[in-house]
């Protein structure tokens, strides 16, 4: 007679082990399985978080291991929140976040809508469109730096071709008013395909029968778009916004390669600022406080957003 897999597993368990676990409750066995995961989580997630919070109240510097560490209360937090430079980097980050998400959603959705239509070469175009997001951000930053070069850069020549402006008369990454847009353009170029793919998944999840029913009810294309397409793609769009929002809040590599935070501090995003405090100035306590502030900000905003997302999904 064939035995079930559970019986075979029981038979394969050595007698000594079987005897030992025979007296264990289901709860104890569950704990045995869960404990390693809890230990790993505690050691690589929770402990560093608690340690960071503790360090944020001290003047600890990791490059001065022999120095005495003093508890300085909320001084690091006070210094960060009253430093005008912090608010400037926050502003730069907000500008970057808002406009990248705005353009990526707009263009990403439009592309997804087009790609969703059946036409010849559909697959080839999809592949071409998603190519930028397969590249390394550092590589993208470097080659866009060349594209933006006023003397040899393709970008300046394209702008010149359409506007008649002399290509050497403007510098995308050297001009205070243009530099914030230069990083928005590159990030949009790179990550719009990601938003497009998510929107495409949303569009393809809408059953044709809904559109057919709408057509039976004589609903026009415009009405179908606003009352069927948009509401049904909205949860996907919101998910894309969440992913891009979190990613761009911690944007580092692309911007460092492209502008280095300059000109001046015009494109110095919070993550670049934080890295400079932590690993160039080595003000570990100060940087820990900065990290805690950023964590609370992202966590708070993400929690509110996820609640809104769940509400939309429930509708």
């Amino acid at each position, binding site marked *: 007679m064939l035995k079930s897999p559970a019986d075979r597993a029981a038979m394969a368990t050595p007698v000594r082990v079987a005897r030992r676990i025979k007296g264990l409750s289901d709860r104890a066995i569950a704990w045995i399985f869960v404990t390693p995961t809890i230990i790993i989580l505690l050691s690589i997630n929770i402990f560093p978080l608690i340690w960071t919070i503790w360090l944020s109240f001290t003047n600890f510097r990791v*490059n001065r291991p022999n120095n005495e560490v003093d508890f300085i209360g909320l001084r690091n937090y006070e210094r960060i929140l009253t430093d005008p430079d912090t608010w400037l980097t926050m502003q730069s980050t907000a500008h970057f976040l808002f406009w990248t998400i705005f353009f990526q959603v707009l263009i990403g959705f439009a592309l997804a809508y087009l790609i969703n239509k059946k036409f010849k070469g559909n697959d080839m175009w999809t592949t071409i469109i998603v190519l930028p997001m397969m590249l390394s951000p550092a590589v993208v930053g470097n080659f866009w730096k060349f594209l933006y070069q006023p003397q040899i850069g393709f970008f300046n020549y394209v702008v010149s071709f359409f506007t008649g402006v002399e290509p050497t008369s403007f*510098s995308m990454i050297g001009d*205070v008013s243009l530099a914030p847009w230069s990083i928005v353009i590159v990030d949009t170029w790179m990550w719009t395909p990601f938003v497009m793919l998510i929107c495409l998944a949303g569009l393809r999840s809408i059953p044709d029968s809904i559109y057919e029913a709408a057509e039976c009810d004589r609903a026009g294309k415009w009405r179908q778009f606003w009352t069927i397409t948009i509401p049904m793609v909205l949860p996907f769009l919101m998910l894309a916004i969440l992913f891009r929002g979190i990613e761009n809040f911690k944007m580092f590599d692309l911007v460092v390669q492209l502008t280095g*935070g300059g000109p001046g501090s015009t494109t110095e995003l919070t993550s670049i600022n934080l890295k400079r405090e932590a690993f*160039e100035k080595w003000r570990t306590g100060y940087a820990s406080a900065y990290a805690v502030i950023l964590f609370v900000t992202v966590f708070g905003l993400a929690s509110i957003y996820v609640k809104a997302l769940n509400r939309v999904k429930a509708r």
Partner: protein
Amino acid sequence: MKSQLLMANTLLAATLYGSAAQADDLTLCWAAWDPANALVELSKGFEAQSGHKMNFEFVPWPNFADRMLNELNSGGKLCDLLIGDSQWIGGAAENGQYLKLNSFFEKEGISMDDFIPATVTGYSEWPKNTPNYYALPAFGDVVGWTYRKDWFERPELKKEFKAKYGRDLGVPASLAELKDIGEFFQGRDIDGKTVYGAAIYTERGSEGITMGVTNALYNYGFAYENPNKPYDIDGFVNSDGAIEGLEFYKDLYDCCTPPGSSDWYMGANIDAYKSGQVAMQMNFAFIWPGVEADPNVGGGKSGYFPNPAGPAGQFAQLGGQGISVVSSSKKRAAALDYIKWFATPKVQQDWWTAGGYSALSAVVEDPSFASSQPYAQTFLDSMAIVKDFWAEPSYASLLLPMQARVHNYVVAGQGTAKQALDGLVKDWDEVFEDEGKK
């Protein structure tokens, strides 16, 4: 006979065992640039002589400080020997990351009096001007200028320049004259190509713009601190002269640099110069052998001059590095062997011949030195006028605000020179207060 044979075998075995036991794999860390390649070739002599094997870890300049300071701070074992930047000496010495070399120098008869004094102060000593040595001067370097001699000698340009400025087109005697030359070449058509005045340091991410702007600041009256009261910086860093110097650097950036040169450092300046974009370039002396060897701009087409004087004197930003033994290395003895070998006059002479800038006085004071290369005299003149940035343990905390403040004013055009330097005083004061030095 039998006993003699046994003894010979024992001796041979001992010798073989001994050499095998002492032969180490050493790793030398430095920046990835031309002199590093020359050092690889030079070090083959050490391998042949000592039996040790040399490995090299070269990091590109923009990431060099980040990578190596992380290595030192984490007590990493990657580097046995490190040719670290001059400004790291304070931190590395105080944090015990470099081995103190005094007793080793004494034992091996290596005297710091044999090296160019500015390089000993700049690369080896901590605290400065005290006989505590943590490095052997390895590579003398200084910011200077390269210019297109072939363009400067064109009769039509000479005539036009003379008519416009009332003097000959030649090596500038002052920073103001340098700016005139920059303006003269800016946007000019030479051989059918638009060229520009000068490539200067403007890089934001690491240390670029600071290494550039100090060449103007020093010469207009900037000082790091009150000479009579350490860490008293207000009125020195932001003196009227310093403000004028910063304004000069911005004027030079605005009037005379190629479009898009808002984030340029050593590599970008070399590229601009070698590709015939600029008439002059500011750069460290290490590039000069490469310029001479270049088919487009070498072989007599280029000339060299030290950083020109300003109203308050003539100074130039010190570059260069010393070679140190990393304290966490397990192969300290072999690493010290390398330093002993590197300090010998013969190796130092070979170092200069290979394209490295020796800091040994015997090499640079040799009567044949000045004429040995077209740039040798300029190197000597420049090394005589050097000043260096802070070498405090908190060097990075002092460098970063300077990068931000100066870039904000010079490149981004935000605020005034006075606001930039007043802000810098505030930032630096904060660092010194944190350090308990004020």
